[in-house]
């Protein structure tokens, strides 16, 4: 109790200094101010305000809570307030002694939170309650999720929002994710939804193309600790996103962070500690099995017993022991990880100010060796009311993060490195030495020892992000409202990579050749975004009519720069940075600047709180386009009918007032992130001898215009049984025209590609979200939630040719992906796999009746690959269906073999509270999507020295073997062409989260001098039910920028299982 009083006194002193003393002496009032428990409140303020709400006199109470004030007149009104208590208005009514008891503010604080949630400013409308919007939105309240071990918001969102698809790029700490709302609305432009934090868009504009270690980049979402978030609104349709300008075209994820309020200082400490484990791995061959397989592969190819270097065969070879082991490489590169996440926040405020400060530190080690992530973050939100008419808000936040990675994908390396090799080099007697085993040349020379790589090489990304904003809100009266926002976002990042000679064993030469020895790479980059928004609204309410009009401007500028520096052969293994070098083996820089302007006017009309029409008209300009097509016009129209509020005859009583039907229609536009494509440009090229030269970069894009999506949405909000059951159904149909994509141009122009407008893409779907409180009594509260959605992305038209193909040819190790008119986006194409030829004599062209086709001389015709002189299939080779029956397996036999997009997806969960205990779960699922298992393709090919899975044990070995696993054949044949053999059902049900928490009862907590205390035990990603043969059907199977990089399993680190203990304490 002692410290509480100390704080109170300290604050009392501060306030005494602030409060002005009065001069008028007309009527004396005195008394005592007490709190709800009857204790005197020192430092409470008692003020008198005039009709214009100006303070005309005021005092603060003394140590015993007593005050004495000279009021201006006997009819004056006093306002008594204290931090953390509800303010009270007291009419003097000629009384001289007025004792006041102030109630704790905590109840009202909760209410405020609820109100704050429902009047989301984030859609741009001011003073419009969210319940009065006609747009499709979903809100997540973070309060329930505090104890969940999520490092990023992506992980929080996964499975919670209908229509929002989240796929983690990898299970490594700090990895980003693919996020798509309502499918992929674009082919060539980024499809990630816009992230808005407290009304200000966050866009990472750091050039991604120079990202060093992976395509993931550092997820910009990651930089907001989940514990700082109050709510997340997902805005889905044109009406909801329109006010964010063209950047909102992919939907908006609007994050509202926690702010201070009129309350006593509240300190919350959230501490989470997790133990993480990687889920199962592929079953790989051991050394003995591997050796047999390799020898067989060579035997089948070269018809003699031989291996690449005969290393396994000659016991007298000095390296024999180094090639006769049983190493479990996957075990060697995986481990269990730890995560600790601590967050401290202090929130509070008074009548005119409110503050929220939070500091956080997260540290995580990954389940793959050599990976880790650390993040320190800080945030200050400060609100100041100058008067009832003018309010300032200032937010500052920073994050410093460090992601440690490996120079190559370790899991993928471990999947293929030969198990006969040891981790540590062995001497002639098979004893381990202290040196890593390295063989840069010779047998599997291209694959580095993954353990050596993890411990000796260096790959890390550092990022510093600073966001600051100042907002000014002017409300001269009830009707007018002016908002002005200025924000600056600065991001500074650096990726470094160094692969030392000791990790590769490559020969070190001092000559200046790009030999991959001691290669140091550094990519410093920075990005800056300036954002300015002015908004003016006018509100008019008369009887049954509520009318709001408004409009404003958004002006934005992005600047970004990056540099890629590479040095080879640094003089020592300890010179990790290219900066220390005198010469660079490669140097590349990018620099970009882009600007956009958005002019918006909006109108909202509500009649009798039941009928509403809303309209927005936006005019967007982007520096990406030339003068003629620079501006695009994007109107939207929406409305609702709150049928629940109708006093219809026969209306069921259990339908709540809030139930409504909504519709919206609107256009949204996208512009490419590049600028100045509307110029023919020239830039420097490599010198020719000693002469400096300039070459043409591109041609002028005079016809480029906005990519436009026409969105239609129909929604139903049902609220039943006094808000105990809520359901939302949305149906939408979005058609994107003039798709923008940097596509190949006629190559005789001398240029590779340029942005072009073409084609039409349709996304339509249905979404359902339901929440219900199943049981509610004194002890129990059981709530359930469920969401499910279906989205279909279909190509309606493309330019001539009617398809865009990534791979033009069938070949081993490659699958064909096409974007084709009439197809779903993300379809796979390939051959149909029909098993294995049991005998040589089966591999001949057959008639439909099963008899062999013969040529003019009566000879049977062998089945060939590619053309009539190509490879002849034999016993043990893969059988592919000859679709066009020409006896040759080639491009003409390629058919569609799968779709990467789920037919249905969603999640469901349960939240049960019994007294102080809460149990909650969340499941997420996908149904009906296919995955191209590239990992399986590589680990069952038996085509090279790579290790394989145990599935190859059933391979064809001799004439007459009936199996569906082809023979081992080194460097020849066509047994692993992209076919339906590798396309698998990717449906899954995942137990994302299960948690049990204990929240100590208020009485007990108060005795401890605390406000609240809770403990949670939780697990995330504990179970996965799937038929998929790979490790994780979700990880690494999506991309926001490449429409072809979908649904492919490329052996990235799978998502770890988290076992977490967390404590939340506040006082």
């Amino acid at each position, binding site marked *: 109790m002692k410290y509480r009083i100390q704080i109170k006194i300290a604050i009392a002193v501060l306030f005494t200094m602030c409060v002005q003393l009065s001069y008028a002496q007309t009527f004396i009032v005195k008394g005592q101010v007490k709190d709800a428990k009857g204790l005197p409140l020192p430092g409470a303020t008692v003020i008198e305000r005039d009709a214009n709400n100006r303070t005309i006199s005021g005092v603060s109470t003394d140590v015993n809570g007593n005050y004495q004030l000279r009021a201006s007149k006997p009819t004056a009104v006093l306002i008594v307030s204290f931090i953390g208590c509800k303010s009270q208005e007291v009419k003097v009514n000629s009384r001289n002694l007025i004792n006041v008891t102030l109630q704790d503010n905590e109840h009202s604080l909760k209410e405020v939170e609820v109100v704050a949630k429902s009047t989301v400013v984030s859609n741009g409308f001011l003073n419009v309650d969210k319940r009065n919007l006609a747009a499709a939105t979903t809100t997540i309240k973070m309060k329930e999720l505090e104890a969940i071990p999520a490092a990023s918001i992506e992980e929080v969102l996964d499975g919670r929002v209908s229509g929002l698809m989240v796929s983690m790029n990898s299970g490594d700490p700090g990895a980003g994710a693919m996020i798509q709302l309502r499918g992929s609305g674009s082919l060539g432009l980024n499809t990630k939804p816009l992230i808005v934090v407290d009304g200000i868009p966050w866009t990472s504009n750091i050039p991604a193309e120079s990202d060093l270690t992976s395509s993931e980049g550092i997820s910009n979402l990651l930089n907001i600790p989940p514990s700082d978030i109050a709510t997340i609104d997902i805005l889905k349709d044109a009406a909801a996103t329109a006010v964010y300008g063209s950047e909102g075209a992919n939907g908006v994820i609007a994050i509202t962070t926690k702010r201070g309020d009129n309350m006593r200082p509240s300190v919350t400490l959230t501490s989470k500690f997790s133990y993480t484990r990687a889920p199962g791995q592929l079953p790989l061959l051991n050394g003995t099995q591997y050796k047999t397989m390799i020898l067989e592969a060579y035997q089948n190819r070269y018809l003699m017993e031989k291996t690449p270097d005969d290393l396994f065969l000659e016991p007298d070879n000095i390296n024999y022991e180094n090639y006769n082991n049983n190493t479990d490489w996957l075990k060697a590169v995986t481990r269990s990880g730890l995560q600790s996440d601590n967050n401290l926040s202090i929130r509070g405020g008074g009548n005119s100010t409110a503050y929220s400060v939070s500091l956080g530190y997260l540290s995580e080690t990954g389940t793959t060796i050599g990976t880790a992530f650390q993040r320190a973050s800080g945030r200050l939100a400060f609100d100041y009311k100058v008067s009832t008419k003018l309010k300032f808000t200032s937010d500052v936040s920073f994050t410093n993060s460090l992601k440690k990675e490996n120079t190559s994908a370790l899991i993928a390396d471990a999947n293929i490195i030969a198990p006969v090799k040891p981790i540590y080099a062995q001497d002639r007697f098979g004893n381990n030495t202290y040196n890593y085993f390295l063989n840069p040349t010779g047998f599997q020379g291209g694959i580095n020892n993954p353990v050596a790589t993890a411990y000796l090489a260096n790959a890390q990304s550092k990022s510093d992000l600073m966001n600051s904003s100042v907002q000014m809100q002017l409300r001269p009266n009830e009707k007018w409202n002016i908002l002005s926002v200025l924000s600056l976002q600065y991001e500074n990042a650096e990726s470094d990579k160094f692969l030392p000679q000791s990790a590769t064993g490559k020969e070190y030469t001092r000559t200046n050749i790009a030999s991959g020895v001691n290669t140091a790479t550094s990519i410093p980059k920075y990005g800056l975004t300036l954002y300015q928004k002015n908004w003016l609204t006018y509100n008019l309410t008369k009887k049954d009519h509520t009318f709001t009009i408004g409009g404003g401007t958004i002006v934005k500028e992005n600047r970004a720069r990056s540099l890629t520096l590479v040095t080879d052969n640094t003089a020592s293994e300890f010179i990790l940075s290219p900066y220390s070098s005198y010469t660079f083996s490669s140097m590349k820089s990018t620099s970009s600047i882009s600007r956009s302007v958005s002019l918006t006017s909006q109108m909202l009309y509500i009649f009798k709180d039941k009928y509403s029409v809303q309209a927005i008209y936006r005019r967007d300009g982007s520096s990406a386009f030339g003068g003629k097509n620079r501006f695009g016009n994007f109107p939207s129209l929406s409305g609702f009918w709150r049928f629940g509020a109708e006093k219809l005859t026969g209306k069921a009583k259990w339908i709540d007032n809030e139930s409504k039907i909504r519709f919206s229609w609107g256009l949204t536009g996208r512009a490419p992130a590049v600028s100045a494509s509307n110029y023919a440009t020239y830039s420097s090229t490599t*010198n020719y001898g000693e002469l400096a030269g300039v070459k*043409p970069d591109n041609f002028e894009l005079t016809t480029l215009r906005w990519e436009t999506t026409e969105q239609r949405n129909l929604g139903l909000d049902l609220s039943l049984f006094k808000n105990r059951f809520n359901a939302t159904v949305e149906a939408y149909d979005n058609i994107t025209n003039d798709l923008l994509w940097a596509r190949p141009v006629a*190559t005789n122009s001398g240029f590779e590609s340029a942005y072009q407008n073409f084609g039409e893409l349709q996304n339509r779907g249905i979404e359902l979200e339901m929440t219900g409180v199943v049981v509610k009594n004194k002890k129990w509260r059981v709530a359930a939630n469920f969401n499910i959605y279906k989205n279909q992305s279909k190509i309606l038209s493309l330019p001539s040719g009617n398809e865009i193909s990534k791979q033009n040819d069938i070949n081993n190790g490659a699958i064909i992906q096409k974007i084709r008119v009439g197809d779903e986006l993300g379809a796979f194409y390939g051959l149909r796999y029909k098993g294995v030829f049991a005998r040589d004599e089966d591999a001949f062209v057959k008639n439909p009746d099963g008899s062999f086709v013969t040529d003019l001389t009566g000879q049977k015709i062998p089945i060939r690959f590619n053309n009539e002189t190509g490879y002849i299939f034999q016993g043990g080779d893969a059988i592919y269906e000859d679709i066009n029956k020409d006896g040759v397996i080639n491009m003409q036999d390629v058919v569609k073999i799968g779709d990467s997009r789920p037919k249905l997806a969603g999640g469901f969960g349960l939240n049960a509270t019994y007294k102080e205990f809460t149990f909650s779960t969340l499941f997420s699922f996908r149904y009906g999507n296919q995955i191209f298992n590239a990992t399986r393709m590589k680990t069952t090919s038996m085509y090279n020295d790579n290790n394989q899975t145990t599935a190859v044990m059933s391979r064809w070995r001799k004439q007459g073997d009936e199996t569906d696993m082809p023979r081992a054949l080194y460097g020849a044949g066509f047994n692993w062409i992209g076919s339906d053999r590798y396309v698998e059902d990717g449906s899954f049900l995942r137990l994302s989260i299960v948690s049990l928490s204990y929240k100590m009862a208020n009485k007990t907590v108060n005795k401890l001098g605390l406000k609240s205390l809770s403990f949670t035990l939780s697990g995330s990603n504990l179970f996965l039910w799937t038929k998929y043969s790979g490790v994780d059907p979700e990880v690494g199977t999506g991309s926001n920028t490449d429409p072809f990089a979908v649904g492919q399993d490329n052996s990235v680190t799978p998502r770890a299982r988290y076992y977490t203990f967390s404590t939340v304490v506040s006082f």
Partner: protein
Amino acid sequence: MKKNRLYHFILSAFVLFLTTSCEEFLTISPDNSLTKDEFWKTKSDATAAIVGVYSTMRNNLEYFLYWGEVRGDLLRSNAGKGAGVDKEAFDVFIVNPSNTMTKYTAMYSVINGANQVIKNIPAIEANDKSFTRTEANRVMGEALFLRAYTYFWLARSFKEVPLTLDPSESDAQNYNLPKSTQQQLFDQIYADVKLAEQYLPASYSTPGETRGRATKYAAFALEADLDLWMGKYQEAISACDSIINPKQYALLTQSNLGNLFYPGNTVESIWEFQYLNSLNQKHSLRAWFNSSVYFTAALTDDLFETKDVRKSNAVSNAYNVLKYNVTTDDAHWINYRYADVLLMKAEALTHLDAAGNQTNFNAAIVEINKVRARAGVEPLVGLTSIAELDEAILDERGRELCFEGKRWFDLVRIASRDNNSGKSMLISRVLSSFDGIDQQIVSLRISNPESWYLPLNSDAINNNTSLVQNPYYK
């Protein structure tokens, strides 16, 4: 009323913003490149632009090897050693339209660069008075020459490709150009090279530029090369003589032969690509040849007589390529050199009289023997027919110019003469570098002369609606 005024002010501020500053605000000229309006102003712009074309041209080195050398009989692509499926396919003549090594975009960026210079030189001349007529002609000549040389590569490799003489400046232009015939391409090349001969200087101020940039002698060499393809033998001889007679060039001595490619810029060289390690200008020839991506065919080894000093400069006993094999990655790539010119003259003399003429033969042998004498081998004697001389010239060119991007074209040029009369010569020479089943497969493919030319890449076909695939690949 006072309040109202305030709102009027704010409203009008919005309106003002709407109407005035937007366009200006959104007009950003790129900060790391020059726009068309900013460029093409001064003499130094002209120089920078033409140097850029050389630099772009140099990027085609790997295509030169594949188009000109790997399909020939002297260099093989090593199966399974990292060249990749596409490149190995070249070796055995299974080149599909999807093969990435059939892309000609990099060639057309040279053509585009040259077209830009040719179009914009008059404007610079008008704008910058310090840009003299001689200088303007020189840059113009270089651009014409580079365009001609690039089209020459395309016409010999694909036979028929689109012919464009306009720079690519905007997406409003029509790039869907149909193919021009080989004859049309040759005619354009001939016209360009004839102009270039007039415009180009005999030398530049530095030795590096004299060897590295186009001179009138380089243009004569290109003309001679083209004349041989077009059957203009008399013109080929006079073009060669225009190089030989001024005595600006000579064969290197035996002991200096190693300097030819590194450090390069020798008296024998007429035009070679410059590389400077210190300025980060490198190529991968050494890496390719060292990593066994390529190896030389066995017959390359047999081609050399024992005393021939050229052998130790060209091939190792382990069938590795030794040319360009120096300590750094900036050995030069020679497009034309004096020995080549002598052998071209010999070929022109051989064919000058369609019926054969011993006087001409003897003159041709004299030229061949100049090259042989330098290599330290006995002079040729007693050749009396066109066929014998053709074989002798082919062998000599193989020994002298192997791995310089000429072999395949030598074979095709000689085989195509008089309605593909040399077809069997080409087949037998190519097949001699294969054995077993490969011989049968390859022989099937190359017996059709249409297969001597590459397919247009499927990218080129897909993105140009007017293009038709070459006959063999339909």
